[in-house]
């Protein structure tokens, strides 16, 4: 599967990555190489194989419903890019 530059831009948008226009062709080439490589999987006959999402056949453990965390806002916000009145700030979101 060879990706066209427009497809690279679409994927980059979906992943919210700014790609310098001069680099788009290079990404298109690299990504196409990787996709061509992983397409070996197409040949695998696995129609009746259960997909394996986890290495261990374990099940989810459940946590008791207890409040264990305390307010650490000051600590957590110490390194935040932009904070005011305890809120994280971002450019205006329009709905």
């Amino acid at each position: 599967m060879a990706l066209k530059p427009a497809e690279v831009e679409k994927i980059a948008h979906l992943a919210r990555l700014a790609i310098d226009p001069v680099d788009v062709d290079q990404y298109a080439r690299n990504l196409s190489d990787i996709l061509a490589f992983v397409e070996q999987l197409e040949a695998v006959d696995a129609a009746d194989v259960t997909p394996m999402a986890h290495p261990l056949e374990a099940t989810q453990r459940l946590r008791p419903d207890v409040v264990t965390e305390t307010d650490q806002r000051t600590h957590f916000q110490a390194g935040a890019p932009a904070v005011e009145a305890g809120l994280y700030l971002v450019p205006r979101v329009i709905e």
Partner: protein
Amino acid sequence: MHTKTLAELARGLRDRAFSSEELTRHYLERIKRHDGQLNSFITLCEDSALARAREADIQLASGKPGPLAGIPFAHKDIFCTDGVRTSCGSRMLDNFIAPYNATVTERLQQAGAVMLGKTNMDEFAMGSSNETSYYGPVNNPWNPDTVPGGSSGGSAAAVAARLAPASTGTDTGGSIRQPAALCGITGLKPTYGRVSRYGMIAFASSLDQAGPMAASAEDAALMLQAMAGFDPRDSTCVDRPVEDYSAGLNNDIRGLRIGLPKEYFGEGLDPAVAKVVEAAIAELKQLGAEPVEISLPNAGLAVPTYYVVAPAECSSNLSRFDGVRFGYRCDNPRDLEDLYKRSRGEGFGPEVKRRIMIGTYALSAGYYDAYYLKAQQARHLIADDFKAAFEKVDVIAGPTAPNTAFRLGEKVDDPVTMYLSDVFTIAVNLAGLPGMSVPAGFVEELPVGLQLIGNYFEEDRLLNVAHRYQQVTDWHTRIPKGFE
């Protein structure tokens, strides 16, 4: 002091032959003297290390020291360390002072270990050469023109150059074993779920696993003992007792069946490396082990499977780096979308961006079945191969990497060739098995690693085989020139 094993250092501290402060100063001095050549550390924690060392000395004097009391170690910069920058090798987290400790950090601290600093690594652990780090590449102490492997390249180089007696690493597709092999040290990736992933910055959640990197199997056993164990904060961490890893190190390995997968000795393996590995296997045979030829018929699917599964998970795991709550934010964002795109575009390097894009693509509408689902199915086939093999053998052995350390820059523009550096290690992560790399010799003065793969939760057996091997060989005691 730096030529001593971790076990010897622990004994020395207990016997008060030297203090932890002296030992810590010694390693800090070595780092300052030598790391200019290697670039194996991103952050050095001189003050806190000395403070911890003095606390350890008090502990040691009180007679109730933790198992690693006063032992310095180097910590991969992927583990969160409260109050210390945790960069993950990325510009994205260059300014990130972690506000909490990873469970592994916590456990090592409780054992009394002294963190010297945070080691260099491929950005977000994505790489096999340590060249994707925002902090520059690491040089292999055996030859500065070559790479140390990756992603735990800084940890491997630091231990190889004896800038630390041991270090932590993480392994998603070979990131402990491959650099251990390329730097001539011992590294172990435990069974998935044996060590908590809490506070270890995620690359691919179903594959990531932390483990020890040290000079010898005996030292790795001591480190793993402190790192392993159940953690209620990690749903994928397994609640079962931890074996005593040191207790069985000297067990006899006579009669041990060692599987040699024919797929690991064929095409793609450097013949000179093959020779070294075969010699190591002959040595194990000398010790009474019985080599058995086996087959892992789907071994060839491992790398392509991995390069769907790992990018898919990483594309989602790395979405939290958005310039809002922590980490890098671009200057003067025009609007929200600009904030996201430029913060991520500028904060991540090219390899991370490539993997995010591959994963985004593989999960997107219309491609999910062909890529992600297919890869999950192939993953099952790969795991089943191992299951069948462990019906017949106790341990699997082969090369860790197909080549010795390659030259800096050699593969950096060719991602697929780079990915094949992990051709023998990746399947182990897909299956979730424990795997280990043990120094087995040299090709043109560059180290070669023997890989040992065990059945689930048989880290003790791997360590036992490796230790017995190290009793009759001295490869693990070799120190690169200039670092003696």
